[in-house]
């Protein structure tokens, strides 16, 4: 079942074409790894899916409904499409629990005790039940990113977008975040993941997309794209990354 359908998506920044005509269907339960050199439009593609950036052309269809541009509609869409950022973007003036509760309280208007219980559950799921009262300044990078994941999960999203979730982390903290994402994968959650962790993409993704020049240059199963890439640009991109992973 297709839950998200993207067609003809285009985006330009200051005259520069970042995305030029992306077509993509996301099926429920799919885990899509998005790869590409920096500047290939990976993050922009992700940010256009929940309209953090407004696409210049093309449509995004969620559960058969094409998404318009009204703010009231976009806020509903963003509740259904969770997003995790490279820089975490936690709210520094709220505790870990406060961060996870915030969407439930302010957006969903859930009573405090219910929101608290739900947020506690999500923190426990990412292994941070004991850090609920900590402010972000007193969490490690890996812990911050896990709180950010819990914050996204609290809204019950049908689709999760991960925008280079481990790129800002010290190497020794990458594992704990990938571990959480892997466990979400095992639950059968639908996700799109922009990453440089090729090994992780290989083992966790069900499909790999290689972006180049704002288009989908090559896609297929992890085995097809990462082990037996057909296109030359994919091959040279992977060659440059091989020394680190796989």
């Amino acid at each position: 079942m297709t839950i998200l359908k993207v067609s003809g998506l285009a985006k330009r920044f200051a005259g520069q074409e970042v995305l030029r005509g992306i077509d993509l269907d996301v099926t429920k339960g799919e885990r899509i790894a998005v790869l590409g050199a920096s500047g290939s439009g990976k993050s922009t593609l992700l940010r256009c899916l929940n309209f953090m950036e407004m696409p210049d052309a093309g449509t995004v269809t969620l559960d058969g409904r094409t998404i318009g541009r009204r703010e009231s509609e976009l806020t509903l869409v963003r509740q259904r499409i969770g997003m995790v950022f490279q820089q975490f973007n936690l709210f520094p003036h709220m505790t870990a629990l406060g961060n996870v509760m915030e969407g439930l309280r302010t957006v969903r208007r859930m009573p405090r005790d219910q929101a608290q219980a739900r947020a506690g559950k999500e923190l426990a799921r990412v292994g941070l039940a004991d850090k609920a009262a900590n402010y972000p300044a007193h969490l490690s990078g890996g812990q911050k990113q896990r709180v950010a994941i819990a914050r996204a999960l609290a809204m019950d999203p049908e689709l999760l977008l991960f925008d280079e979730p481990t790129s800002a982390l010290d190497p020794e903290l990458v594992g704990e975040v990938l571990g959480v994402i892997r466990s979400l994968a095992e639950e059968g959650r639908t996700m799109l993941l922009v990453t440089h962790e090729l090994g992780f993409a290989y083992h966790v993704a069900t499909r790999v997309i290689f972006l180049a020049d704002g288009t989908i240059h090559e896609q297929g199963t992890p085995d097809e794209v990462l082990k037996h890439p057909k296109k030359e640009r994919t091959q040279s991109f992977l060659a440059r990354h091989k020394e680190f992973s796989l």
Partner: protein
Amino acid sequence: MHRWDFASVLANTDALLVGAIGTLHIFAICLVLGLSLGLVVGLGRYARSRWLYWPATAFVEFFRNTPVLVQILWFYFALPILLPFSVSPLEAASLGISLNSAAFSAEIYRGGIQSIERGQWDGARAIGMNWAQAMRRIILPQALKRMMPALTNRAIEIFKMSTLASAVAYVELLQQGKLIASLNFNPIEAYTAVAVIFFVFLWPLVQFTYVLERRLAGDE
């Protein structure tokens, strides 16, 4: 050599007390009106819509580039001629000082809001917040903290600007000082006393801003 004689001032403690209450009264009005209107104007200055941006900008430019004293006199003497109602000294002075403070604090608010990194907006919008929710729950609480020293400085300015109300004979400390000076022929003691009273009110407030600045600097 002048022989200082504060007895003639101390004999008028009651008048100074009335003046102090007048000063605190107009200060409270202008503080609340100025800083809250400033927030509204500051949000207008931050807005992308030109229908909000241009009126807010015109307001800021107008009130930043005209003297408060002229505004107070204008509201007191000119406005009642143009409009069919009278304006009291308190109203004229409050209007002038509040609008001027709104213009200056609007720039503080705008700067504070702009200083919050984009990622905070991203984080807020990603969980489905609309603009107003993100502003109220995520952006403003952080921005206000950063703006605290600047806003406290504004409050100190407002306190001192309250003396301009004496130009339209509103009963506050300076007005009472003038009165005491002219009745007792003791301008040196009367105005010294007024200055000392202001110092006593403001010095702790200024010390508080230093503490605030240090604490905020430690936080970040």
